[in-house]
């Protein structure tokens, strides 16, 4: 079967034409932020660079980086590049305290985003004859609305299920003949397990493909999901800061994700020095959005570690491919699809106990589900002779953590000094998931 593209011209564009297109758009974008975002202008002036210095993508390295700290400093309107009245949408990151990012979209931004997702759906074999079940969470999270919009654009019959209520998901899947499932990989795995538990086999459903993202997953997990649901499973990448899912997507080759380079210029840098690294080298992924109007990010450091590859892809696309993220250059953990910073847990401990006791985060994966445990060393003023008092404290901690992070952690109170120290410092995170 011939490969289908959503936008064949762009997706198979020769490299030199793509560079020309990116260069034109970059020059225009830099002028746009210089004129409309004082925050950018100041950053550029500090680095001694002006729009006159930017003639094409070869000048990209002259521009200052943007980090999550900049987004936090600019919250909420500091990086907005158009009048608020020109914006039609807001999305936000998963709500990590103090690090929340609010992204703005004009109608053109939404159209561009949906176009990117439409390419991903088409690459996964989707057409207007498909029934797309969106089981990502809806709301401020970009997963639900991103895939929803892309599915509409392709013309698929779209089921806005949101996540949860798994038996109902399966019932709809059977009754309405869903052919493409979109959700987090761990939820897809869970749906697969539930399907079997309910006494069904993949033959009872019409699913042929799945588009899964928002959290790290392995090849083993892909095979397991493909087997349990009888589908081909495709990876999708994106972040709220740049628009949402669809910045990059997998094709039939299922080996790396094509980046939508006409909208996002990708670079790999050395996370320590900030120096750009050649294709094929492992480093931190940096994006410049060259078509976004409302919330354009220039050289945004994603903190995701990966490799870019320009090897010819059998699908015919010429878009550069990124590997699955192999880790982070900061201490962020992704647990059950939610971004977790150890500092957030520290904030809760300080709030509940005045001083932060020693703690340790233990993340593991049982089957396909992440487990999340926080061990907390009990101190004198947290201890009492009655079980009631200690259990009350444990419950309060558990509730506060859930409120801050949006996911539940198992709290385990442990004896003083029982958390292993390394050179005097407690080891804060133990991630046993082996995702890379």
């Amino acid at each position, binding site marked *: 079967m011939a490969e289908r593209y959503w936008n064949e011209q762009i997706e198979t564009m020769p490299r030199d034409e793509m560079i020309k297109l990116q260069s034109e758009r970059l020059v225009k974008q830099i002028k746009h932020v210089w004129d409309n975002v004082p925050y950018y202008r100041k950053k550029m002036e500090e680095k001694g660079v002006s729009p006159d210095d930017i003639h094409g993508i070869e000048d990209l390295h002259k521009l200052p980086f943007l980090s999550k700290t900049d987004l936090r400093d600019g919250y909420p309107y500091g990086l907005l590049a158009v009048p608020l009245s020109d914006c039609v949408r807001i999305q936000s990151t998963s709500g990590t305290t103090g690090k929340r990012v609010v992204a703005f979209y004009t109608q053109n931004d939404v159209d561009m985003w949906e176009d990117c997702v439409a390419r991903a759906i088409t690459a996964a074999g989707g057409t207007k004859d498909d029934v797309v079940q969106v089981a990502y969470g809806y709301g401020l999270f970009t997963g639900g609305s991103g895939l929803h919009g892309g599915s509409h654009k392709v013309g698929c019959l779209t089921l806005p299920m949101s996540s949860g209520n798994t038996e109902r998901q399966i019932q709809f899947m059977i009754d309405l003949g869903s052919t493409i499932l979109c959700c987090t990989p761990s939820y897809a795995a869970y749906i697969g397990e539930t399907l079997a538990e309910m006494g069904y086999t993949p033959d009872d459903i019409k699913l042929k493909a799945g588009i899964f993202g928002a959290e790290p997953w392995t090849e083993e997990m892909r095979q397991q999901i493909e087997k349990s649901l009888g589908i081909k499973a495709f990876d999708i990448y994106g972040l709220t800061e740049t628009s949402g899912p669809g910045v990059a997507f997998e094709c039939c080759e299922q080996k790396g994700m094509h980046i939508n380079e006409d909208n996002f210029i990708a670079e790999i840098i050395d996370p320590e020095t900030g120096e750009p690294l050649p294709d094929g080298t492992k480093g931190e992924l940096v994006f410049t959005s060259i078509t976004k109007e409302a919330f354009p990010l220039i050289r945004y450091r994603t903190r995701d570690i990966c490799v870019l590859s320009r090897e010819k892809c059998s699908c015919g696309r010429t878009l550069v491919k990124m590997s699955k993220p192999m880790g982070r250059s900061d201490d962020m953990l992704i647990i059950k699809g939610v971004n977790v910073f150890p500092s957030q847990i520290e904030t809760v401990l300080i709030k509940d106990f005045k001083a932060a006791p020693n703690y340790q985060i233990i993340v593991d994966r049982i089957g396909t589900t992440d487990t999340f445990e926080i061990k907390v060393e009990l101190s004198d003023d947290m201890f009492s002779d*009655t*079980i009631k008092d*200690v259990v009350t404290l444990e419950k309060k901690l558990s509730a506060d953590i859930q409120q801050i992070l949006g996911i539940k952690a198992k709290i385990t109170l442990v004896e003083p000094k029982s958390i292993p120290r390394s050179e005097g410092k407690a080891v804060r995170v133990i991630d046993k998931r082996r995702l890379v």
Partner: protein
Amino acid sequence: MTVKQLSVFVENRPGRLSAVTEALAGAGINIRAVSIADTKDFGIMRIIVNDTDKAIAALKESGFLASAANVIAVIADDKPGSMASIMKILYNDNISVEYMYAAFINRDKGMACLILRVDNNDAAVTALTEAGVKLISEKEISEI
């Protein structure tokens, strides 16, 4: 008149009780009463010893979390109904018992010793003393 009770936080894993009792043994501490309240992940061991301060120091030295609380040690006749009468005295004054356990103290034949943790020590001591119930003092405990 109350006595001091030691509470020790003990994780639910093999060897922890051995470590607690080793620490006490090493300091020459004699245990007069003991009970453990357990949950899924941890327990609280409550003990009454001949020298509370020395015991706390020894436990902290071994890395344990230990604290002291005041409890009441009651002497009761070892016969049907004597515990019921003690509970009745407390109930009449609306005093709530958080937990209780028996001690290894048999000074006189035919007598038993109960350790009570109540929500109001002063009220309980007054009520029990007025009703003629015999309480043991900290000094008596250390001298046994």
